[in-house]
Each structure stands twice: as structure tokens, then as C-alpha cells.
């Protein structure tokens, strides 16, 4: 069927600068750049361009740039090119629109409406370069009251198992299959270097990652890929994935073409078969069933691993999280509706769920109203873009955050949103060996370590400015936040005062 869509991007090649080295031809898995078979001229098929920026950034003479396709739309604020392209794509295929990475729509980003405090006069700011500044967080469940013998300085009942993170930032679950093994290796290396944790996602733990298993959170999702006693006991913690922010309420289909030999071995499914994650866990149809699964995992691991439960931020998230805590979750992971994904139905990604900021604030407050906030840990994810976002999340009530997109961007991802195609030119969201080899795990890990180290220094600076020298004192400390450009209801849910109050 003839495609009635314009290209989204246009490739600009500066003929004066181009030395015709053909690097762009070799680099583009989408086959945008090519040699004309008849004339031998170096040309570009803009229709295939996804704007991953691999060619522009690697071009030795900076001869390339990508611009938006210059075609104007009809001038309607309603029938934009994007809206029409979606219709056209479906008219041509009858399919469900697929999209990747996080919700790109211009919903309110509440982080940008929360301003941070700093000390002036009445208490001192602290200089983190010269005075201690603690950003270590410990995650897990704990009693509300500790039983101790003070004379012997011993704890009478041992603390449940905990995760200890030297930085308040972990890496979100990204499965082998949706991302390459080298991506996971980079995250594993970075997690070890930073003293934090990566999450292998629902696709099993590749044998090459077992040396990093002490830094791994192993995930159990509805498809139970790769889940066996060895897997459950390999990691530092187990995460039950109920949902993710990019696609709450639906399962996943990893297409058969991504199930190569290695993915197949790790997921323990046949090569070339669609890997289908059911929408729900079919052993969880109710909150008490979650308790059953949590404790089956605890039984399977001798109560030695914290069990986290991850949910997408949805309308009733506060009550859900409270139920999760009561069901025995040691760590509650909330993923906001802007969270990324390797592939999700576009309508789901763009329209389902709620922002992490509001969800986090609501959950933290509800758990406190219930008097159980201190007995469980809370992790927030779904677009933490910089250190200030992390500080805001902790002040709203998170113990720690997880980053996915930011870590991938550090490795080279440019958010082109074409992960589902499997042709990621950066070697991240692909299983093609030639593309995967472009991502050197050590080099990618260095970038991620640099990013998180930089953030951690910034977090320390911001905490120091507030006169706080341990992140424990920032957690849930909403007086350190003030709202701007928010209505009363938003302020109420976020539990913050307006700037000037």
C-alpha cells in the first residue's frame, strides 16, 4: 500500500564538508545513507531516518545534520502532522500503533514546578567538599520498633535483609531482549563501581552477568522468563513487576525476531518464538494473592532477599501501595507514566497512568497516614532527568530513585524512540551482533558512572545548601520544596507550600 506519510526528518549533507568516506552508510542500520547503484553518488533516504543522530555525531567532518521535514501541515492545531500520521499508519496496516521510550506528550512536569530550599542565617549551609555528606540509602522493610539489648549492644531480632546503595540512584529494569547484553553489562559494571544496583528485567539473568549478581535485582514478571531457584537466589533482591509506567495494565510481546540464541537461553524459551508476558500475573488476581507470591519468593530464597514490588503509577496508587506494604513488599517501586519502554502500544504509553510526582507524594502521605511508611522502602522512577529531580523525589518521600532513560542517554541513546525496530544504531535496543558490538560495556559504564557521580555531587551540594548532611533527613522533608505555577489541589496532593509561604 502506498505510504501517504511524509518523512519526519530530512537529512542535510554539506557537500563541501563531506569527504565521501561512507562512514554514514556503514553506521546506519536503517539504510538511510546509500550509494546510488547507477551513479555511485552518496545519497540519503530521509523516509527511513529516525533521527538517532548516530551519523551526525560520528561524521568525521561534521558534514551531516538532521532537520525536521520542511513540509508544513494544514495549520490546524487539531489535525497536526503527528495526529494525521497516526491515522495514516493505521489506515495502511490496521495495526495497533507501537511506540518506544517514554510518553513524549507535553503533560505537566511537576518537577519543574517544585523549587528547592537553601539555608540563610537561621541555620548554616554545609560545604560537602569539606564536611561529611551522606547519600547512602538502605532499602528494605524494617520493624517500626527495634528490639535491642542495650547493655550487650545487640539487636534481639535481626533486621530483615536490606540493600545498601552508596548513591540514591539505581538502574531501572531493562530486560535482555529489549536491550542488548552489552547494555546490561554496562549497567552491571556501573552499578558495581557506584555501589548501587542494576535490574535485569523480566528476561532472565544472562550467565555473563552472574559475576555481577550481587549488584543485580532479578525481576519476576507475569511471563516468569528465566525464573528458577538458581535465578531467584542469584541476585541481591527480587522485584515482582506488576506493571511499568509506560504501559500500565498490559503485558508484553517481545517479537520472535529478537529471540536469538542468547536471549532464548536466558529467558528459557525457544528461539524465534514471541515472548509473551501476560497482562496480569495469573497467580495474582487480588491483593492477598500478591502476598502469596511475595512469600513464595521469600520461601524460595530462605528469607534472605528483599522482595520489591513494582507498579505503574495509576489512579488509585496510594491505596494500592498501602496494600502492597501490608502484603509484605519490602520495597515499593512506583513507575510514573513518563517512564520509558522498549516497546508499548502508543495509545497506552501516551494516555494511561499518572505522573510520578503526584503518585509518589500521594503514596508517601498515605503510608504515613497508615503509620507504615517507616516499615517499607519507596523507590520512584519514570523520568528522573537530573540531580534536582532526585532531590525533589527524595523530599517528596522516596528513599531512592531508579533511572532508565537517563542511563541509556549517558550511553549514547538519543531518544529517537525506534527501539521496537531492533535497529538501534547505538547498540542499545538491539540484538543484531554488528550493532551490539558498537556499545563497548566498559566505555558505556564509564559514561554512566560519570553521570551518576556527577549527580551525586550535585545532590550533596543541594543537601548541603539545605543544611542537611544525611539523605535520611531529606526523605519526606517537604518543607524543602515550594511550589510555583501550581493550583491548590496540586499543592495539596504534593503536600508542599506555595513559594513565598
Amino acid at each position: 500500500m502506498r505510504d501517504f506519510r511524509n518523512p519526519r526528518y530530512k537529512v542535510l549533507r554539506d557537500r563541501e564538508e563531506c569527504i565521501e568516506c561512507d562512514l554514514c552508510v556503514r553506521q546506519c542500520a536503517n539504510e538511510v545513507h546509500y550509494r546510488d547503484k547507477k551513479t555511485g553518488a552518496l545519497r540519503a533516504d530521509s523516509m527511513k531516518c529516525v533521527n538517532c543522530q548516530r551519523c551526525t555525531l560520528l561524521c568525521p567532518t561534521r558534514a551531516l545534520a538532521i532537520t525536521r521535514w520542511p513540509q508544513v501541515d494544514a495549520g490546524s492545531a487539531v489535525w497536526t502532522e503527528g495526529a494525521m500520521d497516526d491515522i495514516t499508519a493505521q489506515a495502511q496496516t490496521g495495526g495497533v500503533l507501537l511506540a518506544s521510550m517514554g510518553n513524549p506528550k507535553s503533560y505537566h512536569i511537576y518537577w519543574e514546578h517544585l523549587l528547592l530550599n537553601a539555608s540563610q542565617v537561621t541555620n548554616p549551609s554545609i560545604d560537602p567538599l569539606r564536611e561529611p555528606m551522606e547519600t547512602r540509602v538502605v532499602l528494605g522493610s524494617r520493624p517500626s520498633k527495634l528490639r535491642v539489648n542495650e547493655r550487650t549492644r545487640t539487636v534481639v531480632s535481626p533486621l530483615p535483609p536490606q540493600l545498601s546503595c552508596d548513591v540514591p540512584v539505581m538502574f531501572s529494569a531493562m530486560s535482555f531482549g529489549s536491550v542488548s547484553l552489552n547494555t546490561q553489562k554496562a549497567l552491571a559494571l556501573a552499578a558495581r563501581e557506584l555501589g548501587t544496583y542494576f535490574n535485569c528485567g523480566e528476561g532472565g539473568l544472562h550467565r555473563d552477568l552472574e559475576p555481577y549478581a550481587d549488584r543485580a535485582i532479578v525481576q519476576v514478571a507475569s511471563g516468569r522468563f528465566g525464573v528458577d531457584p538458581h535465578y531467584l537466589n542469584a541476585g541481591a533482591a527480587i522485584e515482582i513487576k506488576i506493571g511499568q509506567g509506560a504501559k500500565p495494565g498490559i503485558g508484553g510481546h517481545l517479537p520472535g525476531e529478537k529471540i536469538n540464541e542468547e536471549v532464548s537461553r536466558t529467558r528459557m524459551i525457544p528461539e524465534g518464538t514471541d515472548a509473551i508476558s501476560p497482562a496480569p500475573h495469573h497467580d495474582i488476581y487480588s491483593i492477598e494473592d500478591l502476598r502469596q507470591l511475595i512469600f513464595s519468593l521469600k520461601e524460595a530464597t530462605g528469607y534472605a532477599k528483599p522482595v520489591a514490588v513494582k507498579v505503574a503509577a495509576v489512579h488509585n496508587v496510594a491505596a494500592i501501595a498501602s496494600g502492597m506494604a501490608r502484603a509484605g513488599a519490602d520495597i515499593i517501586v512506583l513507575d510514573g507514566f513518563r517512564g520509558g519502554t522498549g516497546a508499548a502500544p502508543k495509545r497506552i504509553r501516551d494516555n494511561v497512568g499518572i505522573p510520578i510526582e503526584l503518585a509518589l507524594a500521594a503514596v508517601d502521605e498515605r503510608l504515613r497516614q497508615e503509620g507504615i511508611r517507616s516499615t517499607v522502602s519507596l523507590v520512584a522512577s519514570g523520568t528522573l532527568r537530573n540531580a534536582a529531580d532526585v532531590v525533589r523525589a527524595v523530599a517528596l518521600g522516596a528513599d531512592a530513585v531508579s533511572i532508565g532513560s537517563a542511563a541509556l542517554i549517558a550511553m549514547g541513546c538519543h531518544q529517537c524512540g525506534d527501539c521496537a525496530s531492533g535497529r538501534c544504531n547505538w547498540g542499545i535496543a538491539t540484538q543484531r551482533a554488528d550493532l551490539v558490538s558498537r556499545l563497548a560495556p566498559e566505555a558505556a559504564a564509564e559514561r554512566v558512572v560519570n553521570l551518576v557521580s556527577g549527580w551525586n555531587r550535585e545532590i550533596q551540594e543541594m543537601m548541603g545548601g539545605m543544611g542537611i548532611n544525611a539523605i535520611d533527613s531529606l526523605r519526606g522533608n517537604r518543607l524543602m520544596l515550594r511550589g510555583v505555577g501550581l493550583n491548590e489541589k496540586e499543592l495539596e496532593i504534593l503536600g508542599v507550600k506555595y513559594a513565598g509561604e
Partner: protein
Amino acid sequence: MYDFDRPRTARPDAAGTGVVAGSARLAPCDRHPRAPREGDVRIPAGCAIAAIMDRSGARHDGSDILRSIALMHDRSNGLGGGFAAYGIYPEYEELYAFHIMYESDEARRETEAYLDTYFMSEKQERIPTEPVASIKNPPDIWRYFAAPHPMRLAASGLDEAEYTMAHVFHINGKIDGAFVASSGKNMGAFKGVGYPEDIGAFYRICDYDAWAWTAHGRFPTNTPGWWGGAHPFTLLNWSVVHNGEISSYDANRRYVEQFGYDCELQTDTEVITYLFDLLSRRHGLSPELAAHIMTAPAWDEIDAMDAADAAFETALRTTYASALVNGPFSVILGSSEGLLAINDRLKLRALMAAEKGSMVYMASEQAAIELVCPDAENMRAIGGGEPFVVQLDSVVAAKAAADADAENDPHNAPLAHEVGVLPRRKEA
């Protein structure tokens, strides 16, 4: 024996002077809108603090503590001062001594009706005061010696302390114009808006004998607007005087509120008091371990400990992460056991201690000790994050006899000597 009839004659007649009775809500001035009161907003403050205690339990009048705090006049600004005294009501030592401030007769009637419902009052009277020129518009201040109503206590399912605390919270939160300044046994708080030396004179604290005194002179950034906001802050037998503004306030507030504490006043002192009450009275940890939790060792220090100590400290820090108090503070906690002083981990505030015989002195500034005890010994600065504990000799003896295997028993704390620190240094 203290003459409880004396106040009535010593005190100006309420109806005659209009000093107290019938005054509407206290407003510091007539501007509109009125400045927010303590509790409406959070008011940072700096301060002077001081304490004097006789470990033997012998009682002394308030003249020394008054001189000591008065010397540090410039650390306060006339917007708050007060004292807590332990051992002042030996005749009523089994009863809760409620010191209650009223801004109107209506508030008093409502409060007394409430108290009559839930407590059996053995005695009630105005607290004796002396007119002081600089003290304007004091509230009507009463005291009640009362026991929980036995039937209602039994029906509540609470222990006596929890029951009493719940009703104190009710009066402070629900009865407009009434504020419980103190609610312990054989102790009381005397506080108000003014310089501490003027507040002391107003309350005639030299007429009381106590085995421990604490004092507070306040430098709030704003007028607190009313007397309830002055310090010491108290709950049951706890009293807290505090210097500094903590930066962890909202983290601590939201932590203790989970356990039913209402932080009505939005002050650091209030939340620190509740932390001590939660950790020590409710969770059964010693005050010194509570203080240790509030100024927990850094993770770097814990990492360097041997495995057993590290496990203990990790469990404390992990379980009580939100009880860590951050930012500058020096605190003196008063209790029926004695005094405990603690400075923040970075020691951003000054606090000195010294002793002489059975006497122990503490003050924000050294000279405030030397003024009242020129030959004080063992003068020392209290370190950051190292609780400094002074206990009655009788308490030390009781701890020595306590069952070493008992868990969560304050009596099972490491023996605190006259002046002891925790964590106790390892013997070489």
C-alpha cells in the same frame, strides 16, 4: 512544705487587674492582619540554654539558674523564655501536674470541664505570678494535680502515660485558647513571652525547689504571638530546651506523626521532644540511645566498626533513619531520671558542661556556669553526636541492679555515671 495557698494572696486578683481573665486571644499588636502565631507558621529561632542538677536529689531554688540564663541575655531577644523544674511538687508526686495557659475564661471553663471528665483533680489553682513591667498581657495560668479517671483509663485500653498524652493533645489541638505548658509528675514548666530573667521573676521561680532546672532564652525570628510557643517544650515528664534550627524538621515531623503525635507548634523543640518520647517511653530505649539514634554515627564510621557493632549500628540507623536530626542543635532533655545533653553531629552549636561535687552545670556559654559556680570542675565542651548524661544517683543504682537480659528496657542502658558519654569509648 510548699504553701499552696500563698499564690492566691501573692497574686493580683484577676478580676481586679484584668491582667489575665477575660482577655481575648493575645495579639502582639493590633496590626491587620495579625502576625501569624506559633503553630500557624514555622518560626526559626536561636537561643541560650542552661541547666543545673544535683545528682544526689537535693533540691535548690531557682536563683542560680536565673542568674545563669540571664548572663546570656544577648542570645535571646525578649520573645521567649522559660524554665523546667524537677522535684518541685513532692506532695503530689503521684499526680500529673498540669500547667495550663488560658487566653480566655471560656477556654478555661471548657478545659476544666474536659479535665473533670477524664481526670480526677486533687487540687487546682492559679500559678502564683508577680507583675513584671516588661511582661505584657500574660495569659491566665493554672495548675492542676490530677490522676486519670480510673474507669475511663481502663476503658481506653491505654496505659496511663498514653492516656494522659492523648488528652494533652486534645486540649492543645482542639480547645481554642488553652495550652498545656507541662504535664509531668513532680515537675513543671514556667514559660512565656519575654526575656528569661523576666519570665523567671514573673513566675517567682526562686520560690520553688528542684533537683534539676533547665532554662531557655529564645531568639525567634518572628514574634511567636503567644505564650504556648515559648520553651521549654514538655510532654509528660520530658522537657526539652533547644538551641538551633534543625534542617530535618519536616522529615522528623512526618515521622513522628505516623505514631500519633500532633506537631501543632511546628517547632524543632516540639518534634525533638516527641522523638525522645517515641524512642524512649514508647519503644523502651534509654534516652541516651534515643539521643544516639538522633545523632547517628556516619556510615563511614559504621563501616570501620567490627562486625557486631556495625550490625547494631546499621540496624539502629536503618530502622530509625527518619529519627536522625540534622542541622545545628544543642538540646538539654530533662526527665525524671536526670538530664541529657546532645549536640548535632557536626557540632554546629556550643554547649558546655561542668561539675562540682554532686552538682552538674550546663550552658551555651562557659561563663554562665562560672558565674554560679566559680570553682566548677571538669569544664568541658559537649562533643558533636555524643550524648552527655547526668542521672540521679538513685537511677544509676537502679540500672546497676537491672536484669541484663531484658530487651528494650531503659534500665538496661549502659551504666551512665555522673557524667557519661555514649557511645562509650572502647577500653584500650
